[in-house]
């Protein structure tokens, strides 16, 4: 039965489509969110204006954007990407902002005495110092993005989410359960294996765990 499913290639195609969407959407969320976070973290003016906007946006479940996105992108695949990106961006922004704000002032002062200025300070001190925080942001961005993607696909087109709905329509409960297991496994693998591994490495290198000393 299950082998049959893979043979027809429905699942494989759906899985590939979902994975492609999440990887592109997640990367863009990291990029946009990270950039915005750095700007808000560095500039007081940006923080006072954009900062509260981001906090407001973050409290909106990103799937709420789907109707507007469907209109905006005329029902195209762009709508799903839009929702995935919105799902992940704000968590990334807020965490990068916090990372930049919480850089120990003494590190910045020390770098200044070595002759570093402005953008060099951002590159050489603030960004590396905020990596642990950015990593938390990335993990959250992935989690929100993945959930947003599944929700969007249930309503939209293609991917695991749509296949899940199709399977229900054909009363193929085995397939429904199989897809649900696949969806949760992917979530589990990425969050607990990939992210927590990287996190552990980074935290120990940044001297933020007690185990080393």
């Amino acid at each position, binding site marked *: 039965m299950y082998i049959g499913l893979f043979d027809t290639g429905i699942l494989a195609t759906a899985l590939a489509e979902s994975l492609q969407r999440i990887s592109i959407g997640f990367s863009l969320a990291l990029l946009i969110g990270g950039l915005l976070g750095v700007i808000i973290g560095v500039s007081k003016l940006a923080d006072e204006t954009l900062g509260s906007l981001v906090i407001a946006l973050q409290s909106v479940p990103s799937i709420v954007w789907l109707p507007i996105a469907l209109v905006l992108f005329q029902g195209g695949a762009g709508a799903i990407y839009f929702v995935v990106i919105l799902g992940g961006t704000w968590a990334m922004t807020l965490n990068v902002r916090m990372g930049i704000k919480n850089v*120990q002032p*003494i*590190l910045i*002062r*020390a*770098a*200044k*005495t*070595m*002759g*570093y*200025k402005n953008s060099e300070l951002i590159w*050489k*001190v603030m960004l*590396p*110092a905020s*990596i642990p925080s950015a990593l938390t942001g990335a993990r959250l961005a992935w989690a929100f993005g993945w959930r947003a993607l599944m929700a969007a696909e249930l309503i939209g087109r293609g991917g695991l989410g749509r296949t899940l709905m199709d399977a229900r329509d054909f009363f193929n409960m085995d397939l429904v359960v199989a897809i649900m297991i696949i969806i949760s496994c992917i979530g589990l693998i990425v969050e607990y294996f990939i992210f927590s591994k990287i996190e552990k490495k980074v935290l120990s*290198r*940044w*001297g*933020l765990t007690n185990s*080393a*000393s």
Partner: protein
Amino acid sequence: MEKVAINHVEKTFPGKSKNESFTVFKDISLTVAPGEFVSLLGPSGCGKSTLLNIVAGLDQATEGDVTVGTEKIKSPGSDRGVVFQEAALMPWLTVLENVMLATKKKMNKEDAKSSAEKYLKLVHLSKFLHSYPHELSGGMKQRVAIARALSMDPKVLLMDEPFGALDEQTRMMLHREVQFIWEETKKTILFVTHNIRESILLSDRIVLMGTRPGGIRKIYSVDLPRPRDPASPEFIQLEQDIMSILGGEIEKVMKEEMGDDFNSKKASLLYGTDRNMGNHI
């Protein structure tokens, strides 16, 4: 090796309203000769760090100016190496990379590396080039910070209580190391401390500062031969001289901070002419 001239410097921190502004010190003038080792000594809050930060360019003077050599200080720069009380090492870089962060700014990668290695050798850390800061002891971190400051080959070395957070043994070892480095490199050094013994042990001159009004109270020349022996009668005499003035300044600060709770008899027990004074403040 350059001279440092502090000319009529005043520092006022602006308050929320005009009459809330706070003047730390006023009209401070001090010249540090090339290759001279000068300590700034004074009670907590008298503005030692503030003055050092102005020389470092991290803070701006409200009035007056500071020149290093012939150049007027406007911003921080690699001509003045600074060592803070905390080592302030980048936790994500190895010991070598931390020092290279300073040298890379001035030279190409190869020179930066060999220069960094040279100064890490000077502070006896060649074995730890590839360790991360969190793997080092407090004293080792501080030695990395010293190597980092020296590696830029600054004209002046500014140190703000560099050994304040260390235990007595480590501090004594670093005192010897600093004297050795100073003799080796002949840098001009401005050294902030509130430890009297430390200042006598290391400096050519001791600048005693006070509070309310903030400023220089007295300047002592230390004409004892090096290496200095803290048990010699001259050393003890100077320590007591300084203590008698510093004790009064500390009492002023404590009265200010504690108000009526302050009992000057108890204070004189705490801060009497006990010769370990200064180690515990």
